[in-house]
């Protein structure tokens, strides 16, 4: 008796905890909204199954109290077929529904007007570089890596394409424009995660992995490393700053102007 009630109470509290508040941060783009929809659908499905199962468990325990002798039975084949088919349909249905959300992130081509940025993940900080007006990045030379002088990528100082490359610690993007972020790693595996985008991607040394997204709501959003990378893993923080397009353009102009000043000296 006590056990049944306990099981029901725990199940209800569990459901309550999930529904107690909106645990996700606000969605800032289409993908995030689609994600949230699929999540809530899955929550409905799994929550329903969870509550039903716990209710059934509590119920059979209760029901058995008044029994004189147990019923002898080895099973029911028809029932087996029915609940197997139902489960398979539900589980597979869930995954088919969500496939599109995943393929849109990973199998779509980059939009032609996408902002190109590169991300460098290293123990224990993030850096980003923009190609600048010439649309080209400097070649990279691992021997020229110098964190102290602000060259974490190891940009080849002699490469003219690098003269207008902007290297930053935070990721700035214009709102409403597709972004293609190429992820690079130079030591161990890291992971680029922004909650509001509902996206994360491992950064794997030896691979160049594109992460395509678009952020629609201006704001500052924390970026948290999400793959254990060593003793500074929990300190690997930066921010994604989504700016109205004109502000972004202004920032870019200022950054380039500062670069030219520095190079002139």
């Amino acid at each position: 008796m006590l056990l049944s009630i306990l099981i029901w109470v725990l199940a209800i509290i569990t459901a309550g905890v999930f529904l107690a508040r909106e645990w996700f941060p606000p969605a800032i783009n289409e993908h995030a909204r689609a994600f949230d929809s699929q999540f809530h659908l899955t929550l409905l499905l799994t929550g329903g199954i969870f509550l039903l199962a716990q209710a059934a468990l509590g119920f059979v325990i209760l029901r058995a109290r008044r029994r004189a002798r147990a019923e002898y039975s080895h099973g029911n084949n028809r029932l087996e077929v029915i609940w197997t088919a139902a489960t398979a349909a539900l589980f597979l249905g869930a995954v088919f529904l969500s496939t599109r959300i995943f393929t849109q992130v990973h199998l779509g081509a980059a939009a032609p007007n996408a902002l190109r940025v590169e991300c460098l993940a290293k123990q224990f900080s993030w850096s980003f570089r923009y190609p600048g007006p010439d649309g080209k990045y400097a070649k990279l030379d691992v021997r020229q890596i110098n964190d102290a002088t602000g060259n974490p990528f190891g940009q080849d100082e002699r490469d003219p394409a690098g003269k207008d490359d902007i290297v930053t610690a935070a990721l700035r993007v214009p709102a409403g424009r597709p972004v293609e972020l190429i992820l690079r790693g130079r030591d161990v595996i890291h992971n680029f995660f922004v909650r509001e985008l509902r996206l994360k991607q491992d950064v794997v040394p030896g691979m160049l992995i594109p992460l395509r997204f678009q952020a629609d709501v201006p704001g500052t959003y924390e970026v948290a490393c999400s793959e254990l990378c060593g003793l500074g893993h929990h300190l690997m923080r930066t921010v994604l700053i989504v700016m109205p397009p004109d502000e972004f353009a202004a920032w870019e102009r200022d950054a380039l102007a500062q670069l030219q000043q520095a190079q002139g000296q």
Partner: protein
Amino acid sequence: MLGRIFSTDHKVIGKQYYFLSLFSVMIGLVLSVFMRFHLIYPDKKVKLFELLWPTGAAGGIMTPELYLSIMTMHGTLMVFFVLTTVPQGGFGNFFLPIQIGAADMAFPRLNMLSFWTTLLALLVLLGAFFVPGGAPLGGWTAYPPLSAVGQIAGPGQGDGMDMWILSIALFSIASLLTSINFIATVMELRAPGMTLDRMPLTVWGWFTTAIISLLAFAVLLAAGLLLLFDRWGGTSFFLPAGLVINDRILRNSGGSPVLWQHLFWFFGHPEVYIAILPGMGLISTILSVNSRRPVFGYKAMVGAMLVIAFLGFVVWGHHMFISGMSPYSSIAFSVLTMTVGVPSAIKTFNWLGTLWGGKLRLNVAMLFALGFVSVFVAGGITGIFLGQPAMDLYLHDTYFVVGHFHLIMGVAAVFAMFAGTYYWFPKMFGRMLNETLGKIHFYITFVGVYGIFVPMHVAGLAGNPRRYPDFKEFEFLSDLTRLHTFISHTSFTVAAVQLLFLFNLLWSLWRGARASQNPWDSTTLEWSVPSPPPHDNFGGEPVAVAHGPYEYSVPGSDADFVMQAAPAKEPSA
């Protein structure tokens, strides 16, 4: 005396494994308490930490690297030396031969070798705490490059990592030997009348698990070997070009960190089924015994185990959805992952079906079995989220995953071990455990584990990354302080109540009430011999089996059960 320690008797070996695991789980539990303490009090000075780790916790404050190494050792101890050891090496060794009517395992001396190799593996692992740099900090998953580049990647990644690899290699070899033993025993040493469809589901669980182990640990061994060569042989299996670590440019090139993940998870996913299948067989048995009903759908249960074992080998990629692996692979793995959830669901339905018409006896073993069903559903159902790559784009590497696998492995599988202990203690030691203490143990633990792991799920929904030594750096994490405080305090309570179990266990070993031959009125063969059984199990008597393993409440029978060893003229279906 030496003969008793270096015994080839499967019952002695089973008990040796059990106590090895008990020792391991106590260490693992204490480590987790330290972790939960540090997460909510990261700046508190703790003399005990400083005493245990003068370098890693100088001034009594746990450094991040110490936290991560404690976390790594916690996971390694629990997954290998507890979850993979008690159900198979512990209970399996003790009861498999008896349950099929054999006098011992197929290879008793190999069995003894397996145990001592496992013990050596444990000592080597614990030795990692004592070498320069301490224990490794890359998690039990040991992803390269972090695990492959040695000392320069962080404390513990030098000697400590080597000790870890050596320990896992030894453990893998011991597991392979055990698997060979279990499979050969089931195939060749069943008593007359013990046909495959009369084997208890516990035996099916051990048998299927041994098959999985045989294949999975061979792959882990291969992976560990390649990792060792990347560390010491100058190879580049997992290490790409262009690595710069701690200002050193490494000479490696051409390797792939993702290759390690494929090899590791090809082992790692079947590993979780190794951890749960024996428990599932046991839960089926305990539910049946204490409902006085046959297991509902025995054939479906066997089939489900076999399907889980097979499909378990083709879903490893769901640990790698955001690893940089091909999206097409992700989709394939996702479909297969959903499929493997189906037989688990079937088992749950059948458990409920077993209980449905039953006359329940709520002894402590049964309480844990019922609790198992509850937490297995709770833990398993969130797999439907994680099996979708789209959901994984957010939930991967968050506390949602931590909550999920702890509910399934850290709670459900452990509940099965508790159920097994309360059920089989009388047979193993000839004495009964105290039921009152057992009930207190159950109720507090059952409520407590929900309190610990459900909140972890919502922390994950809030985006809380896992493997963070503290949460001070991020604004969004400051919101979750109260949640984590609640989790930690609940965990301290649950950990403390395990002391009650420990006390019950040790006290009852010497002072428990003497156990009869069959205190639970159970049908399987171990209950037809004395408690504890004689050296050759059946006292030299020939064993013949004429009945199925779950003949309870058979119509037309006087007693409400028919033992498997009963003569054929007893009615059974």
